[in-house]
């Protein structure tokens, strides 16, 4: 029974009214042609109502004249009729089509590009290049180049890239890049000497190429030759000298440190003020009465709304006002000396770079005057003092 009902639903059935004097013979004739009639109900002598299949309507039409019956459709049921009803509703159809199109478009829009394994500069470069190929978030991915083409183009256009993998995953592109590590192959191998960059006492020498002129514990002046490219004295066999000369150097640091320090501390009280920014216009939204007086420190936080790469002209600005409390701290001489040494050491480390090593520091001078401490420190440092100096050959 359910099978039959399903069939009727998909093929469509209709309720019809038959009028005439020869209803029974008419029905008998229809049935003989293979029709199935159900739910026949006699209305009166010359009228009956019944359900037939949509596909049998043709048979009924053909036979009705012979038996002088009048047919009229009361209602249609099933899929074909629903379909007709729906297609007749233009707005509904239009909305349906539109939603299909929108879903299709959204699914075929590139939503994000993820680049991994590259330095920020190179990443920006790759993004810029992708944009010129028409690959950027918010663009349609139909008509975009194949990931393989993009990969080839990127590799051609950006020489710094050793390799880049372009992967399309749904609505996003994932790129994995490997940067070329530059090996200086065109090193200038002209004949050269190594000279001292600054005054120092040699601690260790390691000359890879060339003839060393100094030994450990020698004190050298600035500009003094440490090794030469002239392999044999008074002969013209000149080579490029390479090597490292570690020397002990000295740095003097002068510091003037105040005894009393004023520290501004937030005490936890925070009030917020909100502003709406439309273009260059700023409208206060909430809390514009807050944050007056000098006892507050303000921090601004601004949104940066974007829609599909288009910057929104409307932004929300939040200003956080933190109440601050100034506190004076008087410190002892020893404490100041300690702090001074630490800061001096740090700044010296920054100045010298990674390779140098601070060996020892010594306080030369510590004096208190007018609420300030004068501190003079001496640092002993081991660093490479050798620099390359090319030999001019006069040609």
């Amino acid at each position, binding site marked *: 029974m359910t099978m039959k009902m399903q069939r009727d639903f998909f093929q469509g059935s209709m309720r019809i009214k038959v009028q005439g004097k020869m209803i*029974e*013979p008419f*029905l*008998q004739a229809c*049935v*003989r042609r*293979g029709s*199935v*009639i*159900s*739910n*026949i*109900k*006699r209305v009166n*002598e010359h009228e009956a109502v*019944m359900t037939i299949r949509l596909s049998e309507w043709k048979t009924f039409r053909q036979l009705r004249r012979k038996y002088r019956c009048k047919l009229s459709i009361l209602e249609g049921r099933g899929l074909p009729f629903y379909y007709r009803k729906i297609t007749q509703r233009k707005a509904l159809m239009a909305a349906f089509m539109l939603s299909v199109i929108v879903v299709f478009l959204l699914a075929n829009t590139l939503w994000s590009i993820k680049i991994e394994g590259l330095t920020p500069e190179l990443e920006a470069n790759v993004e810029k290049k992708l944009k010129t190929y028409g690959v950027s978030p918010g663009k349609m991915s139909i008509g975009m180049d194949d990931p393989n083409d993009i990969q080839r183009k990127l590799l051609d256009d950006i020489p710094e890239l050793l390799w880049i993998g372009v992967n399309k995953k749904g609505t996003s592109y994932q790129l994995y890049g490997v940067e070329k590590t530059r090996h200086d192959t065109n090193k200038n191998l002209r004949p050269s000497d190594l000279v001292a960059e600054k005054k120092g006492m040699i601690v260790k020498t390691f000359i890879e190429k060339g003839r060393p002129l100094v030994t450990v514990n020698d004190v050298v002046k600035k500009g003094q030759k440490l090794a030469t490219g002239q392999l044999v004295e008074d002969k013209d066999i000149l080579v490029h000298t390479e090597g490292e000369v570690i020397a002990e150097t000295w740095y003097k640091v002068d510091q003037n440190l105040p005894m009393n320090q004023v520290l501004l501390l937030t005490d936890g009280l925070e009030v917020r003020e909100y502003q709406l920014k439309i273009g260059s216009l700023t409208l206060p939204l909430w809390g514009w009465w807050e944050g007056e007086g000098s006892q507050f420190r303000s921090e601004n936080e601004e949104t940066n709304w974007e829609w599909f790469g288009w910057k929104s002209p409307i932004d929300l600005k939040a200003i956080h006002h933190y109440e601050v409390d100034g506190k004076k701290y008087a410190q002892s001489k020893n404490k100041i000396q300690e702090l001074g040494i630490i800061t001096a050491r740090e700044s010296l480390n920054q100045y010298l770079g990674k390779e140098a090593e601070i060996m020892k520091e010594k306080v030369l001078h510590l004096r208190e005057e007018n609420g300030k401490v004068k501190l003079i420190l001496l640092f002993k440092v081991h660093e490479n003092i050798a620099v390359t100096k090319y030999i001019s050959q006069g040609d």
Partner: protein
Amino acid sequence: MTKWQKQIRTWIGRYFDLPSDVMLDLPRITTIGSIHVYIENHTGLLHFSDNEVRIQYKRGQVKIIGKDLGVKMMLKEELLLEGEIKSVEFLPEA
């Protein structure tokens, strides 16, 4: 159908123990209580109304009398009636 044909059919039906409706072209009428009547192997619907249905078969007519009768389904040689059935009457041709 001549008389001797009828006799042979009856005899074959008995001999092979075949259902008589198949052999003799008679209608098979099944009723479920008094609410449904299922008629197979008929040759035509002659008349139907709320209280009377007449069906033709090879050797006569069947008259079904009841109340609120309706044809639930009608196929080439099958008929399903429903309603409140009072009687099933055979009117064989003379």
